[in-house]
């Protein structure tokens, strides 16, 4: 851990004015950033503690959705009545993540900015293009159990570790950000990036920009949904594959389908073409299998993670089936529904 300055502004404007240097980091729950600082992966010159900014509310929007303040803790968000009743997919994904202690500390905005759990990214004794651009990717050809099968590049095969973001991708959330230059919104699909040749950039957030809120549109998929997370133990493990599935059925026919995958790519993975395939059809494992095949057509294993390709296929079919049956995976239930 390096030496750093610590600032604790009380207004948004003050916070934004303090964060003009790229080596400044905003500090919210700190559940990931502080870990990375201890590992010498993150070496900020200065931490701007945003915990005292008024970003901790959940508000109804005029469009019939919700605007979730960036500082709402994951634990509170998962249990908030408006979330459990209207957006149970989001609640479920939150409860699938981390541990109760971590969810108490982790925030909505911070969750978006979790960094990969790639072993090599975390170990400063190894090269890593994400940590040190141009140094190479040691993960390729190494231990790749947790790595990407979709959208990877020759520079980086890391995955995004969040569960919450997988649900937000399926729900088509919108991210509100502010900086000293002003405010803007980013569609969730455009928030995170694929690694390409700039794996050091996890998201399209510009230096100095602060996530202030995440907005959920009105369509909430409160009946036909499921978040299915497959991992190495029943709790406190990152997803090997996770699926957020949401369907709107009209007269027994799929009118809308959303599917996002976690643990398989550098960002929550969505494939709109594949989603369209099932529209107008009766829900069923065969139809869902075709969706999975489309999504995974370009999947490529790295060796250790080859199993993720068949696993993802099965998980997609199962999660869509759970959603269609209105039998969502309950996170307190160890049996898979």
């Amino acid at each position, binding site marked *: *851990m*390096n*030496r750093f300055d610590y600032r604790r502004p009380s207004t948004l404007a003050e916070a934004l004015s303090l964060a003009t240097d790229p080596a400044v980091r905003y500090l919210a729950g700190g559940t990931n950033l502080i870990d990375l600082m*201890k*590992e*010498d992966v993150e070496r900020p010159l200065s931490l701007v503690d945003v915990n005292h900014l008024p970003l901790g509310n959940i508000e109804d929007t005029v469009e019939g959705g919700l605007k979730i303040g960036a500082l709402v803790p994951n634990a509170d968000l998962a249990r908030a009545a408006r979330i459990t009743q209207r957006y149970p997919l989001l609640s479920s994904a939150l409860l699938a993540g981390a541990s109760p202690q971590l969810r108490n500390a982790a925030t909505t905005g911070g969750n978006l900015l979790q960094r990969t*759990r790639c*072993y*090599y990214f*975390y*170990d400063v*004794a*190894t090269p890593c293009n994400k940590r040190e651009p141009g140094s190479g990717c*040691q993960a390729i*050809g*190494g*231990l790749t*159990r*947790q790595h990407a099968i979709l959208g990877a590049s020759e520079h980086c095969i890391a995955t995004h570790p969040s569960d919450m973001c997988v649900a937000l991708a399926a729900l088509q959330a919108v991210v509100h950000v502010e900086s000293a230059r002003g405010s803007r919104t980013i569609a969730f699909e455009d928030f995170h990036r694929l690694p390409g040749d700039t794996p050091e950039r996890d998201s399209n957030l510009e230096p100095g920009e602060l996530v202030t809120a995440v907005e959920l549109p009105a369509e909430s998929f409160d009946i036909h949904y499921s978040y*299915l997370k*497959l*991992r*190495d*133990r*029943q*709790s*406190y*493990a*990152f997803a*090997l594959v996770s699926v957020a599935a949401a369907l709107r059925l009209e007269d027994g026919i799929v009118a809308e389908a959303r599917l996002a995958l976690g643990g398989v790519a550098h960002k929550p993975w969505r494939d709109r073409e594949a989603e369209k395939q099932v529209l107008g059809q009766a829900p069923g494992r065969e139809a869902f299998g075709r969706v999975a095949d489309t999504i995974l057509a370009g999947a490529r294993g790295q060796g*250790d993670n080859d*199993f993720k390709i*068949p*696993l993802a296929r*099965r*998980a997609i*079919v*199962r999660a869509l089936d759970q959603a269609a049956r209105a039998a969502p995976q309950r996170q307190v239930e*160890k*049996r*898979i529904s």
Partner: protein
Amino acid sequence: MKEMKSQTLQAQEGRNAGFGTALSRVDGAAKVTGQAKYAAEFTRPDLLFGVVYTARIAKGKIKRIDTSRALAMDGVVDVLTHENSPRVTHFDLKLKDMSAPTVGHPFRALDSDDILYPGQPIALVVAETLEIARAAARLVDVDYEWQDFETDLKRATPFVPKVPGVGERKPKSRGKAEAAFASSPVQITGDYHLMPEHHNPMELFASTVFCEDDGRLTIYDKTQGVKNSHCYICNAMGFKRAKVRVLSPFVGGAFGSALRPQYQLWLAALAAKKLERSVRVVMTRQEMFGHGYRPECYNRIQLGADDQGHLKAIINSAVTGTSSYENYTESIVSWGGMLYQCDNAKLDYQIARVDTATPCNMRAPGGATGTNMFEIAMDELAYASNVDPLELRLRNYAERHQLKDRDYTSKALRDCYQRGARKFGWEKRSPEPRSMREGHELIGWGMATGVWDAMMAPTSVRATLHADGSLEVGTATADIGPGTYTMMTQIASDATGIPVERITAKLGDSDLPFAPVEGGSATAASAGTAVQKACHALMKQVLEQANQLENSPLSGARMEDVDLVGGRIQLSENPAQGMSFSEVFTAAGLDSLEAKKFGRPRMTRKARNTHSAVFVEVRVDEEVGMARVTRVVNAVAAGRIINPKTARSQIIGGVVFGIGMALEEESLADHRIGRWMNHNLAEYHVPVNADVPDIDVIFVEEEDHEASPIGVKGVGEIGVCGTAAAIANALFHATGKRLRDLPITIDKLVTD
């Protein structure tokens, strides 16, 4: 054999809480309220903080180490490296701690420019605060010279260790196994593999060395044996033994990793010696992957049987990893060789050098690996011979220890099988794999036998009775979690009739009488026997004092004539006639009485072992490869149980280790660079609460005063032996898929 009766807690009522009482831990309240202090929690105003810098290559030389930038930081006191560290002993023999491998050169931190393994400490940054030391450590700059290395056991060259490890014997073959195997109508051959495991105790390794004004050193160390740390560090650094005291009042888990003194003790002592200042060194979680671990194992097992499943041949050969600088060995193949009636057994064991730190004992070292692999093989034989797995074990039941060809002091394994099976409902099992199902889930029932040693080691205890009637019993053992404080208190209460709240157990202090390291499940038998002996001797002294008093109500009474009840000594025939201990002390003008006794094992040629029968239910969602353990019954025969509550906790802990071994735990190395890569608790998976079902523990008591004078065999390790196999066997029963490579993770279950 009698069934253990669970007894209610009597301690709070001021009565004695002897053998068989489910006494809650006497140190429980201190632990849960944070009053119990661990090695890293002792502090003084002038304390310095050492932060370790570890090698970033697997093997080679330090060409240049530049500490100038670190030294330039305000608050940094020194950076110790091989270039500027104080001289330590030249003699390897002086570094052979109680748990060191017989053959090899014990590791010396900061002793030369050699890098022997990845994660080796090569510098210690010492500063006025932890934060400064940590910030400065990242400024150390090193040029390395890489050398060829190998961390993959598969590619290392096995050899037969000429000298077995401490307490081990070379596996002894018998009969003509190869011919018997060839002519057996039923044969199975399996290649089993276990990934390396790291202990990952909750508490980080820590040593706090205080330099006293008079030149003495007081050292708080995370250790399983203060005498071991004391002797080792004095020998290493040339300290006078009388001037060093090592304390370790509480240990937050160790599982064998603190049997040998770890490098943080060496580094803290080295810095204190050089700087003549008090220093603390605490490892990070990542650094805790830079010392001992349970070695990887490749194990081929061939079993031959007649068509009724009677074993005709055992051929078993195993290889485990050791380091480049020490020969660490384990007993892998002896367990299967001893456990079942079989005239022909060929047992081979080899080790192979990998460039890691020397592996070390981890809960049931060798036994956890060996019994679990052998018991999977037995399950394979059960299916191959079409005999129920439990019935197969009964058909091959050995009344005598097959390796030593000796009787057992006791072996209630038959009762374990019977009672475990009844509790589990084994008779309702459908024998065919894949034949039990509920909804999406396949259900599997598996079982296995567990076996471990019932060891005992010489231990000395001092018992002191004070004039106020309070009793103190002390020995330099440890309490790494099993409840040693509680066990000592209970045995003292049992032996003296003094209520537990008037008894203080002392341990974890090198000034106390000798005890070996707490390991091998031996402490209850060892320290327990010595506590009982010392207390009996002490009570004899009290009676002698009472005998001599004028008009003594106990005049002429002998020990067999009296009862010890609630701090009183009284005639059995007339309880009203007696004296309290305080009355005796007052009348005799005494402040205290003291007895010191040595407990040692009884001489016997018989084999001493604990046994268990483990029954497991798993449920597997085959589509997505998710497996979970839903029921465990573990029936254990381990002699007499001192405390059913703490003993049950030990078995539960062992079972959780078994779940980890079967399904989750593996240290993953990138062999291209020779580094452990999943070196944190998020990526090295140990079972979490959600993975652990209710665990049913049955103790089948054995009356056995040959195993140890107090009839105790020890329960610290037997819980892991057999459990992983029972899980793997249940997975086979559920899925029809035989998986021989532990841990059985989702990828192995999901691939066709």
